[in-house]
């Protein structure tokens, strides 16, 4: 059961990482990056490193995601 979960998690990590790099729309890439960060936090928790998981969720997914979304907003307004 937990092995299946780990396998699914690893596949989802690889998929979201690849998609966030290859998708052609910036906003989708950012959302995928945030999803990647949350999955990464889960992966750290599964690797029994909850400290890193917490930091990843707060900094990697939360703050970086917000910064990227804000930068995207500024870029979009600059273009329009």
């Amino acid at each position, binding site marked *: 059961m937990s092995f299946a979960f780990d396998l699914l998690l690893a596949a989802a990590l690889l998929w979201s990482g690849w998609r966030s790099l290859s998708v052609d729309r910036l906003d989708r890439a950012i959302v995928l990056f945030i999803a990647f960060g949350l999955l990464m936090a889960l992966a750290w928790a599964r690797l029994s490193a909850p400290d890193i998981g917490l*930091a990843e969720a*707060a900094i990697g997914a939360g*703050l970086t995601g917000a910064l990227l979304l804000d930068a995207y907003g500024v870029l979009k307004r600059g273009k329009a």
Partner: protein
Amino acid sequence: MKRFVVASGAMAFAVLLIGALLEPLPSGVDLRVAVAANMTASGVEHPVTAVLLNFRGYDTLLEIAVLLLALIVILASGIDTTSDRSRATSSILQTLARLAAPLMIVVAVYLLWAGAFRPGGAFQAGAVLASAAVLLHLTGLLPSWQAPLLTLRWGLTAGFLIFLAVAAGLLTQGSLLQYPPAQAGMLILLIEVGLTLSLGLILAGLFLFLSRDPGDDS
């Protein structure tokens, strides 16, 4: 052709990484035993916090210094002082942010306190604090920061200064950041409180100093 070169380079790197992962660790460096043997002298009960703030406190001191330096560089490169944009925000978002922000502050304090005996600690607590500030800013409740006033400057540097003061005070004991075991818990908590506050402000500052709209000077 270029694509092929990049892809094969990435493949080679991935194979190297996987090979490095599969390589067995040299047997002489099992640090868990050393950490477990010294836990009683560290002043905290969670091994990660013990390593971060006691055994390898020097690294953490440099980490907070690097973060502070990053913010100072951003400030030195000049903040655009055009007027803050007024964001179109809904009252639902604002109400939710008003409800979430106090909870986030409580969570931050809990993480700080829990760091002594379970996963948590100053960095996570600071990140949660910063997220609360960013959330309030994005919903239009907290204006972005102008040039930092004196209070904010003290807040940004407090963590580093407290850490440095403790380190300097302990120099008389022998070596840098070697806490006396009896006071280690108190000193670590003191440092972590300062670190949480400063990290929250620094991380929020990375967002709030930068988040003004250069195209919005009309």
